[in-house]
């Protein structure tokens, strides 16, 4: 029974992803214009959704940590776990988008507002993850990281706004035009929605596992300090061996 409970979530994620793969590769039709390349949609869009969801969770967890009444060490660890998953999926979104752009738009990269903002967001949160790893104590880390997370979260819309403005003032007719955006219906829409659901499950699973590891790491540090103190006390003959 415990075995079932232990692996149930992971198994559900695997099944959901497998069904997504079957739907995306075999059930949904190819696109009139894009052919099979349109199937990248089912990876790209859910990845982007997870990236934004993850950074939203990081921001909420950071606020919960900053408010004294709701402050728990878990919020800090959750913010970090979610940001790490978010960075991975942001990178995946950029890479998949680039792979998709090549056959469909004829270019690996376009300085479009959405692409540019996503790239800047990637670097903002890489910085945040780097900040988390700079070996301060848990209490010190909490406040710095929570504030950094909120600044990063607030900066993303500002970056998007300024890049968007840059586009409208300076570049006209990017490759993002309406004809190339396929209108979605039927089995394609179903596959997409299913994919988003499956990826959300995956996100939940990854964050929970990462959170558990972070908690264990914290516990390990505490235990090691206790062990070191005990050893020192024994060496000083304060406590008999």
């Amino acid at each position, binding site marked *: 029974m415990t075995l079932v409970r232990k692996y149930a979530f992971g198994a559900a994620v695997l099944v959901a992803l497998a069904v997504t793969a079957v739907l995306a590769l075999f059930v949904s039709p190819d696109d009139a214009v894009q052919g099979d390349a349109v199937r990248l949609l089912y990876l790209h869009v859910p990845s982007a959704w997870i990236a934004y969801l993850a950074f939203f969770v990081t921001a909420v967890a950071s606020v919960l940590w900053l408010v004294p009444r709701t402050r728990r060490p878990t919020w800090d660890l959750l913010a970090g776990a979610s940001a790490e998953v978010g960075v991975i999926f942001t990178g995946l979104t950029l890479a998949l988008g680039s792979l998709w752009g090549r056959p469909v738009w004829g270019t690996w990269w376009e300085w479009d507002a959405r692409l540019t903002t996503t790239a*800047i967001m990637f*670097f*903002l949160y*890489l*910085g*945040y993850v*780097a*900040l988390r790893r*700079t*070996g*301060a104590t848990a*209490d*010190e880390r909490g*406040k*710095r990281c929570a*504030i*950094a997370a909120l*600044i*990063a979260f*607030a*900066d993303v819309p*500002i*970056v998007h*706004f*300024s*890049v968007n*403005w*840059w586009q409208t*003032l*300076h570049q006209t007719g990017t490759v993002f035009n309406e004809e190339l955006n396929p209108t979605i219906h039927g089995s394609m829409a179903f596959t997409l929605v299913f994919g988003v659901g499956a990826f959300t499950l995956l996100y939940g699973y990854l964050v929970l596992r990462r959170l558990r590891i972070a908690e264990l790491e914290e516990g390990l540090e505490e235990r090691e300090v206790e062990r070191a103190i005990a050893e020192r006390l024994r060496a000083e003959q304060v406590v008999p061996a």
Partner: protein
Amino acid sequence: MMFVRDALLVAGKDLRIERRSRVALQQILPFGGIVIVMFAFALDADRTSLPSAAPGLFWAAVLLAALLAIGRSFTVEEANGARDGLRLSGLDGGSIFAGKAAAIAVELFLLEVVLGVAVVVLYGVALHGAVVLVCAAVAATIGLAATGTVYGVLATGLRARDTLVPLLVLPAVTPVMLGATRAFAAALEGSTSEAWQWVQLLAAFSLLAVAAGVMAFGPLLEES
């Protein structure tokens, strides 16, 4: 009133340190200059492409030099327990932030004047719209200094501070780099009204950055 007086006190202290130690003058300023020269090599000193790229290259050089100025501003607080002194001084966190950011901004203004002259001379840029250029530079510099000061104190006392601050600051000041470059380019091309639109964006960003800094600095300084 107290706020302004305290901020001026902190800014005066930082600028006095820079005047006496000459690090800004003898290291950061020449660094900005060599970056301007290096960009000319990168573009093969092409007289046609250099003037058109000049606004972007100028602000990239300012941004790189600003990273040094930010690092410097927090290095001076590290020796002799100066940070504890600041914390125990009874000054409000917000005014310490304003003072440190103002000192960085003043240093950057001086740097921009010198680099501006260098760009005009070396890249063969013809100056137009002096008023909007100065306004854009002021708004951009305040945003840059404020954002840098927030991240500077955020990384204070961490072992990887020197390498961490540039990674944190650069993506965060994307709007400044974009806005200032476009404002300068528009002004130099003679489309002043477009330049003013960018100045508005820069001013809005600076306001937000200063507000965030005034709020966050006190708690961060306590912590570090």
